[in-house]
């Protein structure tokens, strides 16, 4: 039985350039999973970008030293497929009755397709949005799950004019993504435009009812002597029956220095 709460998936990832992989996402997550960091697969840096993984594997030099950035091909010259990468990992998860699990991506740049045990889910575009997929029904019965994600760069990565300039040719502004990546007066362009699974990947296991995006607000009166905490939560009942819930909120004073509250 999986424990209620969040499990971060930040180890054991592999990556490979999409053009070097002849398999589909269904094959990668059923009959032909990669066995380990052997070509074209390499150890991946998640969360992180495609370039971070290539630098960590010494496939490319670190662009922050000397003029190394000049030796890294820019996406404008290589084409988007050159920085379109597969990311792959395995995870254990076995649920008990009435348990549910979500696969969460806190940030992907710029769009992706997710394959889990042979099932495909498409993630919408946008660098600054979370994705939460209810994968309860597609987990593997034996608990060993295979996950593959193909990540595509921004739709408009733009081209860096020979004169450089703030934001290059500004094409990146057509997407909802970080704009500095085309270069600015204080920095050179980022060659992969920060493509990748750039923020946390996690599994969240719940019972039949799930808490989403609580909102906490404080209000003050009488010169801050009288204060109120207002809390609003969204709840989702993912079972087939009426859920009789006890909803609790508890506020504990902070941990003062090294005094622990028990």
């Amino acid at each position, binding site marked *: 039985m999986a424990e*209620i*709460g969040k499990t971060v998936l930040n180890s054991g990832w592999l990556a490979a350039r999409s053009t070097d992989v002849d398999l589909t996402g269904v094959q990668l997550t059923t009959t032909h999973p990669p066995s380990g960091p052997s070509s074209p697969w390499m150890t991946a840096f998640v*969360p*992180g970008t495609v370039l*971070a993984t290539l630098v960590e594997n010494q496939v490319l030099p670190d*662009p922050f030293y000397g003029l190394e950035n000049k030796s890294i091909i820019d996406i404008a010259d290589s084409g988007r497929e050159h920085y379109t990468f597969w990311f792959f990992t395995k995870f254990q998860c076995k649920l008990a009755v009435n348990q549910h699990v979500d696969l969460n991506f*806190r940030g992907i740049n710029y769009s992706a397709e997710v394959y889990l045990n042979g099932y495909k889910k498409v993630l*919408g575009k946008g*660098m600054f*949005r979370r994705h939460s997929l209810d994968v309860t029904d597609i987990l593997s019965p034996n608990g060993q799950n295979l996950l593959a994600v193909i990540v595509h760069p921004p739709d408009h990565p733009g081209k860096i004019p020979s004169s450089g300039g*703030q*934001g290059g040719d*500004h*094409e*990146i*502004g*057509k997407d*909802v*993504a970080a*704009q*500095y990546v085309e270069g*600015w007066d204080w920095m050179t362009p980022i060659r992969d435009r*920060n493509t*990748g699974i750039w923020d946390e990947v996690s599994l969240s296991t*719940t*019972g*039949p*009812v*799930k*808490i989403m995006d*609580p909102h906490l607000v*404080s209000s*003050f009166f*009488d*010169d*801050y*002597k*009288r*204060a109120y*905490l207002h*809390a*609003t*939560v969204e*709840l989702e*009942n*993912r079972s087939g*029956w009426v*859920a*009789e*819930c*006890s*909803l*609790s*909120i*508890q*506020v*504990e*004073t*902070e*941990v003062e220095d090294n005094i622990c509250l028990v």
Partner: protein
Amino acid sequence: EHLQTQQLSIPPGARVQYSFPEIFFYKPNLWWPNGMGKQSLYNVTIDVDVKGYGESDMWNHLFGFRKIENYIDSATGGRLFKVNGEPVFIRGGNWILSDGLLRLSKKRYQTDIKFHADMNFNMMRCWGGGLAERPEFYHYCDVYGLLVWQEFWITGDVDGRGDPISNPNGPLDHDLFMLCARDTVKLLRNHASLALWVGGNEQTPPDDINAALKHDLRLHPQFENGNGN
């Protein structure tokens, strides 16, 4: 110190929004910016038990009691900030992001943010061409008392005021921009350090996006009246 439990029935497959009755505090320890007092944080835990099942889900967050106000000063045209009713002299630093390959970690954020606090800053301005910063960034700004000015993804250079003039109407997909903005607000809105959402850098977002942001981020009518009822 404060525990409140409410009973709730949720129909099968339904998604509901629930507000707790407000919880009263007498003289709570307030959260203050760096150099003005302690950054008191309270651990707020929300959990839901389901009859016949047990604990179903749990969420917690370190919350700071503080009131942040800002307005344009008619005499100077500058933006003035107040925290808990006290005016703040803003010592702000520009922030793009911590690493250009997004190798972002708690440790890295703690080091970067503490460095700025040690330099006696009390605000980080997250530039519109960079990131909507991450919860770990905001957590350490909560801990070290750095107010955060967070811009959305519009810059003068790229969105209509650069050379060449380009994207005068911002990104191609305004609905996608608003979806990302709304989700980012939900991700970050409970952090004590979050002081100001800003449409963009040296540029106002396209009218429809600007209007939607202003509407969504307006003060909730419930908090409009100041007389304490």
